[in-house]
């Protein structure tokens, strides 16, 4: 095709750099970074993650090292009349009932808990978004059947299912991810379906159909990007939920096994000796609470930032 000769101004304009647009997400990012609580939470969370990755490496103790001379020692600076050990100056968070350093174990537990949180949420995100978007977009009978399946899975008792899984397939780390992820995608699917149903009604979807875009193209290019907002918010609220679920399973003895550990295991152990060695409960519980708070604040911040009514 031969192009019509462009006018001089048009040529000038073409040579000039195309103006960069301001996308909705860029707007949302700007608003998010104005939210002090969310920014502080993000910083704190980053700090916890960095500690979890690097602090155990720098410590003189490994998370499995036992020292029978320092069983249930309080940290040096712990107030009150509690057992103190000679060498406990080096144990910042004290030691547990078999003489392992709690600082290292708490941060090691952070690794496990955060990984479970992120990976299981990612699994649920993938399944949930795809399932929900397809169900909502297909509509009609397909939608009804797909949603009834979700309802059935919802009605199965979660703990019971996990116990069965653990018994059948033996207890292992990966299975835990799968079990938690397999349950938390249900809510995600419902949210995405609802959003899809409303996005489907929008005129731009009809415009895309008129432009000859196929159904999967529409889901990928138009539906999914437009449901991202509520999904991101839900993700930040799922991660703490998953961390809690893992802790709960571990607390019951169904999750992580010794000598590996997670916040749930540590809290469970700490709770057992709450009266004699409160530090064993306070530190892991404190870290976990802090993390959950951070995620919730970030979620709230994101929701405010993405809410179009604020525009």
């Amino acid at each position, binding site marked *: 095709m031969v*192009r*019509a000769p*462009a006018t001089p101004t*048009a040529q000038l*304009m*073409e040579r*000039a*750099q*195309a*103006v*960069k*647009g*301001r*996308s*909705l*997400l860029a707007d949302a990012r700007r608003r998010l970074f104005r939210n002090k609580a969310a920014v502080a939470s993000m910083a704190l969370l980053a700090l916890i993650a960095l500690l979890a990755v690097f602090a155990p490496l720098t410590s003189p103790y490994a998370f499995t090292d036992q020292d029978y001379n320092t069983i249930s020692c309080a940290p040096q600076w712990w107030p009150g009349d509690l057992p103190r050990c000679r060498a406990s100056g080096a144990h910042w968070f004290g030691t547990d009932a078999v003489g392992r350093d709690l600082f290292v174990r708490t941060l090691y537990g952070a690794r496990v808990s955060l990984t479970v949180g992120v990976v299981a949420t990612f699994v649920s995100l993938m399944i949930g978004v795809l399932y929900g978007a397809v169900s909502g977009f297909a509509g009609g009978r397909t939608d009804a059947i797909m949603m009834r399946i979700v309802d059935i899975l919802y009605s199965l008792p979660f703990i019971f299912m996990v116990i069965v899984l653990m018994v059948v397939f033996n207890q292992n780390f990966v299975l835990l991810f799968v079990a938690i992820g397999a349950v938390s995608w249900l809510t995600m699917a419902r949210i995405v379906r609802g959003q899809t149903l409303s996005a489907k009604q*929008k*005129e*731009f979807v*009809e*415009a*895309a*159909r*008129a*432009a*000859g*875009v*196929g159904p999967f*193209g529409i889901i990928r*290019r*138009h539906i999914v*990007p*437009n449901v*991202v907002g509520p999904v991101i918010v839900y993700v930040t609220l799922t991660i703490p939920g998953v961390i809690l679920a893992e802790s709960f399973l571990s607390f019951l003895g169904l999750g992580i096994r010794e000598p590996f550990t997670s916040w749930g295991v540590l809290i469970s152990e700490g709770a057992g000796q709450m009266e004699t060695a409160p530090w064993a409960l306070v530190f892991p519980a404190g870290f976990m609470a802090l993390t959950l708070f951070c995620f919730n604040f970030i979620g709230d911040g994101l929701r405010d930032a993405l809410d179009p009514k*604020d*525009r």
Partner: protein
Amino acid sequence: MSVPVLSVKNLDVRFRTPDGEVHAVKSVTFDVAEGECLGVVGESGSGKSQLFLAAVGLLAGNGRATGNVVYRGQELLNAPAKQLNNIRGSKITMIFQDPLTSLTPHMRIGEQIIETLVTHKKIDRREAERRTLATLELVRISEGKRRMRQYPHELSGGMRQRVMIAMATVCGPDLLIADEPTTALDVTVQAQILEIMRDLRKELSTSIVLISHDMGVIASMCDRVQVMRHGEFVETGPADDIFYHPKHPYTQMLLDAMPRIDRPERPGRIPLTPLPQASPVLLQVEDVKVHFPIRTSGTILPKYKPLRAVDGVSFTLKEGETLGVVGESGCGKSTLARAVLRLLPSTAGMVVWAGRNLSEVDKNELRRLRKEFQIVFQDPLASLDPRMKIGESIAEPVRSLEPELPRATVTERVREIMEKVGLDPAWINRYPHEFSGGQNQRVGVARAMILRPRLIVCDEAVSALDVSIQAQIIDLILSLQAEFGMSLIFISHDLSVVRQVSHRVMVLYLGRVVELASRDAIYKDARHPYTKALISAVMVPDPKAERARTRRLLTGELPSPLDTRSALMFLRSKRIDDPDAEQYVPRLIEVAPGHFVAEHDSA
């Protein structure tokens, strides 16, 4: 001159928003005289609504107003809420654009009117009921007793607006502020409502402030007009002066931009390209029906009734021709467009595109054919994906229908078409929310045009735009047609716009064609009573003509499309009195060459 009812001095309104301060009204001064009808005209964003909301103390929380607003010697601006409440709703009342959101959904309409009366007039209930009934009669709501017991959702838009008017007038106000009272209504209903307001004014000698963007409405109602732009009055004067001798260029521009049913070709506007004699037929639509099953009753076993959205429509369209489709809301014009473009499956009938029956081609073939017919939607912002750059939106038809093209070529074509529709190609990476409605509609036109289709359907493509922008988009579409010679199906509720852009006009009523004729014949030689009523309801920005005119008003409501009797509104003699019976289908009779009229009873 007597003392004005409302006197506004140096009223200034500002809003604090996250993006900085918005100066909505810039120190305006004006009076409303006893018994007059003052028109305030302006385009969206001119501050015309905020001005009056501020005057009666109904500004949103982030707004601040300064100046003086004096009602019969009382200062209203920033007065305590208690004092304002005594005046608002009783002495100064307001009618808004959307009557559904202005009425409380869970209260019977009678209760709502009585409540107003009891609060303000301190009269007993029986007396209040009596007055309510009288007022309902005044706004021509028949069977007032029964209507009083209905809820807002049971009433049609026009009925609701009458209830709003009844509520606003029941206490005998001095000043009635009507903010776009007929904008959301169909033209025939608009004519009825304005008629009611005109009579009320005579009977109650209330002053009226009519806020509108529509010069036609203003011309038919107002004695004095204020033209507002960017928060300021640019011109003020008696209606005749404003309409016949506008001084300010903005007023002039508004009047020029307004499509006029009596003058389809106006100087300064791009004319319609005449149709070549021997144009081949491009599209043939044969007895197309689109029925939607509607669940009517049955608690366990549902019962379905067909909603006949489109019920046997036939027409042909030639290469390069524009067919205008007019009708009121619910007449099936948008459904027809979607059925023709195969965006909706039709229940029966045939669409033949360039010799091929579209209902027989398979999915892939249909996708390939989509290159040749495209659509422009009503709401420019809603029809663009908010998360896509406009360049991507424009490129979408190319990318999905000609996927083999390299990216650079696509971008090149996007830039080319952007220039054609009057968009700076440097904006290719911008997002829809950074643009105005008119610019977004240009994006919509660019998207439809990029594949150089042979047919474009414009579904109310200019209805949501301000008149000046509307005129620009119409000019754009006409010039593109002159250049590329595509056919157009131009759908609108606005007969004036349709007459300006179309070679032929088709009038739809409840899913059926009632009249089909050339653009001149439809206006000068309308035969069907519905077409006549439609033409008669159109307001013209010409106060003298408006005053001289007597309107042929349709009485009553648009009947339910679920009732098969409704379709024979104009042919009662053949009607079978059963809502479910198969009814007689009126034939289209060719009364003059190319002029078809549906059978109807002679009036």
